[in-house]
């Protein structure tokens, strides 16, 4: 009964989110590059995320496929249980992959050029563009083929996994892909469910089972699923064989938290209809826990299972560099067309005179004379296009891809990003975004598990107005030295005992026995921390705080030892006590507290409640309220997460009243939610305050330094957390996100639009009036959604002027929404999201760069991230050093690619002026072919893998250098123009340098032979001839020096007059590197001042 309510409540909320999510991801690209091909959850076919079309709204499933025997029954068709995440098959690989590749504009362009070359009388051989294209396509096809092969392998593994199915009266082993809808499937302990199953029975008498959905939503706690009483009795194959049942349910949809259906069981000719809800459905991908075996009927299979439908295709993230690259390509295409058109026009202008068009020594063929002028014009234009097409760098994409792929290894290899305690190194899931790491402007970080260790430790508590701290498994009151001799029997006062009992009983922690070898989440090395393992007993809790408290209580002497259905058992110093769980008043975000109503061993009825102090203190009537409040504030200031514990003893009359209220609310058919809230409020009052707890979530190492470094680098850090406002602020303060000197503004608990707008305007005014000190902003989830709904601009305005923003009480999708808001704001800043839990996944996927922390909350975030690191502190090196390097490298690579092609092809263009625009090539075919794919791409590739313009230590110690490359500055239009102009200048120098040198065709050789530099068909021995000429060598030297001259002069002046901070620190680091020797060479006065600077 209870979980149903929980789930309906949750389900409604989630459903709305899910809808939005679907819209969000419906637009994503079909193509997804996911390195985690081996994980079925993360890699499914593109059409997932949409609900498949169905003829009817419901599906009818005959359990064990026992269809009705009347003749006119038409079975519904369902998908089989095959999961397909691969993109290609052996047969369609070639056509499909080629199609995909030629959708890339550059590839398509080269294909066209190649075809043109095949068709017209071409100045260059078709090989010159065909071979590079072939090379590029092949390399990419091999890479994609390999990735798809991995996916196939993963699919086969999943689809071929053995499962047990009840068929014709016995248990049959078959492969997962053979499961059909309606099959009864048996799943054993610790196995994952092969399809969405409706639970029929388990080995327990009550037909319940425990599952964990860690791989689906990241929640590691155990959940209880139920079966209908009529089927729960069918615990053996023979009983199941006799079961006559029909399930009717909705068609599959992506909502993990909603399932509506009913089961009709025919018993003794009588039809019994039972409702099926989400608590009856076992989702594919979830894992059976604590239950020996279950039987379930397959409801949704294969690509129609909720997990498959829920797979959000990862929209392919494109980096800013790639966008600039495409712009540059278009510009170059423009230059190419312009040159081709100009050449064609000039050709006709030139050839108007017969003596140029057809001198006696160069007669036309009959065919040429007779072809139509229009055709000739077009063919001439195309010929020029072909001649100049090398201005578009064909190997740009391939080289960039190789650079990214190879370069990304350095992240994984970096010892500084290696976390020794957990033996985890940084992990790169998408190498496409390396350079984006150098462009980050906003960091959105989760708090728990990202900034903190997510390792809750009970630290202090306040019982009845006295502060205690835990010392060696004992409670030590504040101010009292621990002078009691060891070994004395622990003694607890009544208050203390009651408090501890409350802590040990008021929770939703699950216990798991006897599975030391099977932690949740598979091979996660951290998962042992999820369950406190002692005498083969582990606690599982959805909230780590609860777990910490229960564990603390156990250490102190009140151990929670068993929870079976309705009874909870605790051991107080070895003495076992059984409590009967009468009611559980679930936690919810509005009440911010949860309660249990128990029957004590002595028969009394008691309510224990625990929650945020603001949610409990107002309802307390007795106990040390003021002192406790003081203590709670004190705890919060220390950064502890606080909870207040209270109780209420019911007299039998009161309890009857309470039960009446509760049952009325729970069985209400309309407005159940509201009624429940009322009932809860009715019950949770007149509380007796027991005390408060302070749980510490330790900050990770060097968080403060990291945040400070990011801030110096010009990156704005936002903390987005689901935690409550007080805790969030205190953690924010302790990790340096908020400074003590900061003026902290609040936008909290806004109830209405107007109120929110008013508050925003007030804040805006305050910021503008007082811009001397820094401002920090605290927003909570509810206010944020109001602010985002109507006042986006105003909110953005406020946020931009705050140096730190903290969002608390955020729902996962709200986090993503904030990220998207910034991503799409007019400045289009580059955003980075970092988090460790499943609740951060949407944010990680939304941001330009998503970083997962390999924490304790499963691998969900890591799996969906672009990069994964073990600790938050590694972010500084990842961005400041690796990001900086990658950006510089790729920016130079891209600019150089365009530059080199201008240099290469402009002489070709210029030469047309000297050969009557006859499309004579200046270069040999082999040279044309290999220039791009070989001669010029490898040196720059090496450069772009190893370049370090500043020493990494300097980069890390001076985060300000990061600002030098912000806003894609090295690929700005200005820089691009400069490179292009340099390219043209160099091309002119090359061409006219050689032209003047050899223009008169004078001898360059000592033997008087004339050395013309044009040889179309055959380069045979030309190079040797060239290199044996002294003049050629002198010419090469002078041309190179002349080309470099203007650039060097410009650089020297800029460097001297307007040095960027990067350049300044280059000098600095160099001086340090060279050390005293260098200084000694300088005049004494300057050397002294420099020494001072360095030391």
């Amino acid at each position, binding site marked *: 009964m209870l979980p149903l309510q929980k789930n309906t409540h949750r389900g409604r909320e989630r459903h709305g989110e899910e809808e939005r999510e679907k819209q969000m991801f419906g637009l994503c690209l079909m193509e997804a590059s996911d390195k985690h091909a081996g994980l079925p959850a993360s890699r499914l076919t593109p059409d997932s995320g949409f609900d498949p079309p169905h003829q009817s709204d419901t599906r009818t499933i005959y359990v064990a496929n026992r269809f009705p025997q009347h003749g006119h029954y038409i079975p519904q068709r369902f998908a089989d249980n095959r999961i397909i995440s691969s993109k290609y098959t052996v047969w369609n690989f070639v056509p499909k992959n080629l199609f995909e590749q030629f959708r890339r504009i550059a590839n398509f362009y080269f294909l066209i050029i190649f075809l043109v070359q095949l068709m017209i009388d071409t100045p260059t051989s078709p090989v010159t563009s065909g071979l590079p294209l072939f090379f590029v396509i092949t390399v990419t096809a091999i890479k994609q083929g390999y990735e798809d092969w991995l996916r196939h392998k993963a699919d086969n593994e999943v689809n071929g996994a053995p499962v047990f199915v009840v068929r014709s009266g016995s248990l049959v082993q078959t492969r997962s892909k053979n499961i059909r809808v309606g099959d009864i499937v048996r799943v054993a302990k610790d196995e994952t469910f092969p399809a969405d199953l409706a639970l029929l029975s388990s080995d327990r008498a009550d037909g319940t089972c425990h599952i964990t959905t860690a791989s689906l939503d990241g929640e590691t706690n155990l959940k209880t699923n139920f079966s209908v009483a009529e089927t729960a009795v069918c615990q053996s194959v023979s009983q199941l064989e006799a079961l006559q049942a029909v399930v009717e349910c909705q068609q599959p949809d992506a909502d993990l938290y909603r399932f509506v259906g009913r089961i009709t069981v025919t018993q003794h000719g009588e039809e019994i209809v039972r409702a099926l809800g989400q608590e009856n459905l076992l989702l594919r991908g979830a894992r059976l826990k604590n239950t020996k075996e279950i039987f379930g009927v397959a409801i949704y299979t294969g690509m129609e299972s909720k997990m498959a439908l829920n797979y959000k295709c990862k929209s392919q993230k494109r980096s800013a560099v790639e966008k600039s690259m495409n712009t540059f390509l278009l510009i170059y295409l423009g230059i190419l067309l312009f040159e081709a058109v100009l050449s064609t026009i000039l050709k006709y202008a030139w050839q108007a005179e017969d003596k140029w068009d057809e001198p006696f020594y160069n007669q036309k*063929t009959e065919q040429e004379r007779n072809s139509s002028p229009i055709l000739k014009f077009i063919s001439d234009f195309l010929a020029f296009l072909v001649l100049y097409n090398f201005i578009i760098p064909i190997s740009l994409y391939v080289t960039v891809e190789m650079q990214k792929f190879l370069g990304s290894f350095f992240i994984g290899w970096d*010892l500084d990003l290696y976390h020794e305690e957990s033996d985890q190194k940084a992990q790169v899931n998408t190498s496409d975004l390396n350079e984006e790491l150098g462009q980050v402007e906003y960091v959105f970080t989760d708090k728990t598990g990202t900034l903190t260790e997510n390792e809750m430790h009970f630290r202090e508590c306040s019982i009845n107005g006295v502060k205690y701290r835990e010392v060696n498994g004992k409670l030590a009151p504040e101010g009292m030295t621990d002078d009691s001799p060891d070994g004395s029997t622990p003694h607890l006062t009544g208050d203390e005992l009651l408090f501890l009992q409350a802590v040990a009983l008021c929770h939703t922690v699950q216990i798991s026995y006897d599975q030391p070898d099977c932690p949740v989440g598979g091979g996660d090395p951290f998962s042992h921390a999820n369950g406190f393992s002692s005498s083969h007993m582990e606690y599982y809790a959805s909230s780590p705080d609860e777990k910490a408290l229960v564990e603390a209580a156990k250490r102190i002497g009140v151990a929670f030892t068993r929870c079976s259905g309705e009874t909870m058992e605790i051991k107080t110093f070895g003495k076992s006590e059984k409590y009967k769980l009468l009611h559980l008043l679930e936690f919810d975000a509005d009440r911010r507290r949860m309660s249990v109503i128990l029957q004590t061993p002595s028969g009394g009825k008691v309510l224990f409640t625990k929650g945020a102090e603001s949610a409990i203190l107002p309802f307390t009537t007795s106990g040390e309220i003021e002192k406790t409040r003081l203590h709670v504030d004190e705890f919060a200031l220390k950064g502890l997460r606080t909870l207040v514990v209270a109780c209420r003893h019911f007299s039998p009359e009161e309890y009857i009243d309470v039960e009446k209220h509760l049952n009325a609310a729970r069985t209400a058919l309309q407005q159940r939610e509201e009624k429940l809230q009322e009932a809860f409020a009715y019950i949770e009052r007149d509380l007796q305050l027991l005390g408060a707890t302070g749980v510490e979530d330790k900050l990770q190492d060097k968080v403060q330094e990291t945040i400070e470094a990011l801030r110096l680098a010009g990156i704005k850090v936002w903390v987005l957390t689901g935690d409550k406002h007080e805790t969030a602020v205190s953690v924010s303060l302790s990790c340096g996100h908020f400074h003590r000197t900061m003026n902290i503004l609040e936008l909290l608990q806004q109830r209405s639009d107007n109120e929110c707008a008013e508050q925003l305007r007030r804040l805006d005014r305050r910021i503008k009036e007082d811009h001397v000190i820094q401002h920090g902003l605290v927003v909570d989830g509810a206010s944020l959604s109001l602010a985002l709904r109507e006042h986006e601009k105003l909110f953005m305005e406020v946020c931009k002027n705050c140096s730190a923003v903290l969002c608390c009480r955020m729902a996962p999708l709200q986090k993503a929404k904030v990220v998207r808001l910034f991503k799409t704001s007019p400045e289009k800043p580059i955003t980075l999201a970092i988090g460790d839990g499943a609740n951060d996944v949407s944010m990680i996927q939304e941001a330009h760069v998503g970083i997962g922390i390999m924490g304790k909350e499963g691998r969900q975030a890591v799996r969906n991230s672009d990069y994964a690191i073990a600790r938050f502190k590694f972010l500084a090196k990842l961005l400041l050093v690796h990001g900086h390097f990658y950006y510089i490298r790729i920016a130079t690579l891209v600019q150089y690619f365009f530059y080199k092609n201008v240099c290469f092809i402009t002489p070709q263009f210029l030469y047309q002026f000297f050969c009557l625009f006859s499309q004579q090539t200046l270069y040999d075919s082999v040279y044309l072919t290999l220039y791009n794919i070989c001669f010029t791409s490898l040196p720059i590739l090496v450069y772009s893998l190893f370049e370090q313009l500043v020493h990494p230590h300097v980069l890390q110690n001076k985060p300000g250098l990061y600002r030098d490359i912000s806003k894609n500055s090295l690929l700005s239009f200005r820089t691009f123009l400069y490179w292009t102009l340099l390219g043209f200048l160099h091309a002119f120098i090359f061409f006219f340098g050689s032209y003047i040198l050899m223009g008169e065709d004078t001898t360059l*050789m*000592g033997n008087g032979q004339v050395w013309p530099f044009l040889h179309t*068909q055959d380069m045979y021995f030309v190079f040797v001839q060239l290199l044996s000429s002294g003049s050629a060598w002198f010419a090469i030297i*002078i041309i190179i020096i002349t080309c470099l001259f203007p650039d060097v002069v410009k650089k020297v002046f800029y460097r001297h007059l307007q040095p960027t901070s990067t350049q300044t620190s280059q000098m600095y680091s160099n001086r340090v590197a060279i050390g005293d020797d260098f200084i000694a060479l300088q005049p004494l006065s300057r050397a002294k001042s420099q020494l001072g600077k360095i030391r």
Partner: protein
Amino acid sequence: MVKQEEQLLADRPDNTAFTQQRLPAWQPMLSAGIVIPGFVLIGLAFIGIGVALFVTSQSIQVLEMDYTGRETTSGCFKCTDPDTKNCVCQLDFDIDTLIKGPVFFYYGLSNYFQNYRRYGVSKDDTQLSGDLDNFINPSDTCSPYDTDNDKPIVPCGSIANSMFNDTFVLHQLINGTKKLVPFDGKGIAWWTDYNVKYRNPGVKPLKDAFKDTVKPPFWPKPAYELDPSDPNNNGFINQDFLVWMRRAALSDFRKLYRRIARGDYTQGLPAGNYSLEIHYNYPVLSFNGRKKVVFSNVSWMGGQNEFLGIAYLVVGSMCIIMSIVMLIVYAKFKFPEED
């Protein structure tokens, strides 16, 4: 124990200079302190080289004479009429000082586009390498000079067809008598062209190989009779033919015709009066062309070429000037202080 530790840290990246990006590196910095001395050095070196190159180039003697005969006063005017056949004209000139040997004798053409693409592809490399199959079936690229009245043209194509066919005889006038200046036509083409790229078919006598083929239409005699004086200088390996087949890059070009390094002229052409007898066959006026002859000697760096020397001088002085400017800027604006 050690093993256990290793196992514990199985994922630990290797600590090598490569993986940790600590490979030794040198970073040249374009700071004024390095660039100024650098520029001075380069500048001085370049000026030095420039002077040397310039002087070398100046020492080369060149005598260049136009004999197109466009002007009526010119001796070859009579030959410009396309109808005149076997016209011979004379070009008299004086040499003041000895042109040191070996002297090279070039012919030059201008406004002649050997670099026209259609012209350039109009040859059959396989045929020219002596393949008899291509004697019978010349490549299509030779069109329109592939066949003549259904008989294959050998050598085919526009380039071969348009081979330069003026010939020259040089006499020194000593006291009214003409003394023949002997020419050396050996080794004027590239060694590789003569020995590798162009081959005559292995048929002896050479004439038989050309059976059933016709000579290029513009040619006065077939390929196997190009040099009656030297049987080894015929066919495709005729030196003049090889020189012509190597197309010029630009429209004004000169090609080596003969070397003067024999007999009394091994030391060069002495001062005196000379007369060049020109067998004027090649028409150029239809396309505003010009013809000329050039006598030149060479240095180690080839023929006269002032450009290199001047370029070195200019760039060298630019470097020096820039370094002075930089020095001034450097002194005036001190390098911004480190914060």
